[in-house]
């Protein structure tokens, strides 16, 4: 992975300043300011409809804020052109390709497409694909149809795609929906490992206990930002109750 070379600059991976976004007249996000530092594992939590996915879209430059700025690797996020640096796993990744005849390797190879849209794959391209498959432990499934894997295995395929891209940032939107508890834990261990090796990760998940266990930073969101900081601190404050508007108890998993 190339994360260490690209993160020598001290600039944040993502810098959001006072960003607001609305669908029509319905405000979704209000004056959000947030920075994601290199090597961070940011967990975004918040109730349904709190604007988590929209915030992630702003971060990776899929949407433009109505006001405020979002910078990605120091550039305005929507103008940022080096697609291979962003590994994005959309919310519906588990349903993607379920019916489609496509192999694990074919999906992982897509990670190289931003670098090589036409022409033969180089030895380096093929090596990156093989390494990515190996790294998430699905090398033996490479020739299998993605739709015929279990939910947990399928998630790893999309992580491998981001790794094959040699991305510096991995952004995941509720990746473990429909994945059984055991695979989910293994999946988060994998994310934590990747984070320790230097990959910056942003994760949205509804399971607050899991997020606070694995993330190094927590952003608690419900249209505006209720908390941004250390997970342990987050558990101690009542930001969660404020954001959710009810009594919520955090089950902090011990690992």
């Amino acid at each position, binding site marked *: 992975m190339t994360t260490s070379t690209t993160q020598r600059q001290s600039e944040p991976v993502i810098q959001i300043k006072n960003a607001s976004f609305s669908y029509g007249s319905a405000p979704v996000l209000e004056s959000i300011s947030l920075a994601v530092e290199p090597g961070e594992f940011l967990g975004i939590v918040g109730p349904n409809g709190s604007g988590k996915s929209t915030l992630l879209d702003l971060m990776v430059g*899929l949407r433009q804020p109505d006001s405020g700025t979002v910078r990605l690797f120091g550039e305005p996020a929507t103008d940022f052109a080096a*697609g291979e640096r962003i590994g*994005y796993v959309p919310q519906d*990744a588990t349903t993607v390709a379920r019916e*489609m*005849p*496509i192999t694990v390797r074919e999906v992982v190879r*897509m990670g190289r497409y931003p670098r090589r849209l036409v022409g033969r794959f180089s030895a380096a391209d093929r090596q990156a694909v093989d390494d990515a498959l190996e790294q998430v432990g699905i090398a033996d499934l490479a020739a*299998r*149809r993605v739709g015929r894997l279990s939910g947990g295995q399928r998630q790893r395929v999309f992580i491998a795609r981001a790794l094959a891209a040699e991305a510096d940032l991995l952004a995941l939107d509720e990746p473990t929906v429909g994945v059984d508890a055991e695979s989910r834990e293994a999946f988060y261990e994998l994310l934590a490992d990747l984070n320790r090796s230097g990959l910056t990760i942003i994760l949205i998940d509804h399971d607050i206990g899991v997020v606070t266990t694995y993330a190094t930073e927590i952003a608690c969101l419900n249209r505006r930002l209720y908390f941004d900081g250390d997970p342990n601190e987050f558990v101690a404050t009542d930001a969660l109750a404020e954001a959710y508007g009810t009594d919520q108890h955090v089950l902090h998993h011990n690992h």
Partner: protein
Amino acid sequence: MSVHTTTVRPVGSALQFSPVESLFTVFEWFLTNVYGAGMDLLADLSGVQMLGYPYMQRAYLAAVCIAVIGPLVGTFLVHRELSMLSDTLAHTAFAGVAVGLFLNATFSLSVSPLATAFIVAVGTALLVELLVDYAGAYSDTSLAIVLTGGFAVGSVLITATDGGIAVGINAYLFGSLATVSKTNVGLLVFMSLFIGSLVALAYRPLLYVTVDATAAKAARLNVRLYKRLMVVLTALVVVSAMQIMGVILVAAMLVVPVAAAALVARSFKQSILLAILAAEFAAIVGVTISYHYGLAAGGSIVLAAIGVYAAVLSVQKLTDGTGLLSRQRSPQRSVDQSTTTVKADGGDEE
């Protein structure tokens, strides 16, 4: 038995003509001296006389081309869950044909109805894609409105033109082998090469957009461009194939073989290849049956294709049901089983 005489204008003289003309001359030479001669030989060897008739040779060549480009583009379309779009564009292509005939009759022009069909179908394709940009998603309803609207425009224009032009409309609606001229086949071969090269060039972005458009956008692929390319390709295929298959049935060539291939294929590339094979089988069987029994070619081809789909489906259900072959044939059974099973059916990629 030799239907053709072999002395045609030498290829060299083609240089004196305009590029299009000389291209066509080369094609004509190929059609007669290479393809035609080959088919004549085949007819002699096999004793199947119809293979020696020039118009049947053209029909087979046209059907073979359609069976390549239909599934080639259809595979992307079907897996983007846009099967309906091919039907919609076919029906608006009919409006395009009617526009051409109407212009010719009203202003005494000699525009090719096929040319207006191309323009109208490609225009509609881009318009639909533009609407989707604003509305966010394709909806059955909007496609149904465009489909029926296109067909309505076609039927109104035809009746608005003085009687005569209704003649020949049947050929466009239901397709016809008899009307396939050298020019038609030449155009079809050219379009097949053109469509084939475009898909080959844009294979990766088209695949990425088909599988996962949001991730493709995050990877900074020009998703909008490739979505447009996909619908334009669909329009080109539909209009190219329209004359043989007919407006009403042409969509089947983009959908049915693809559906059959999706049942058994493991990889996307394999599914394109299998879909083309299924379509070739259906096309050749369909054209042959249609000639022998004097039946509609389009309908015969589509029925043959559906036959292939049904056969694949029932073989699959049967083997799944008995469990005898299921371990080998359908890997989904063994996902959570031992790794030996994984290796047993998982080693043929690349």
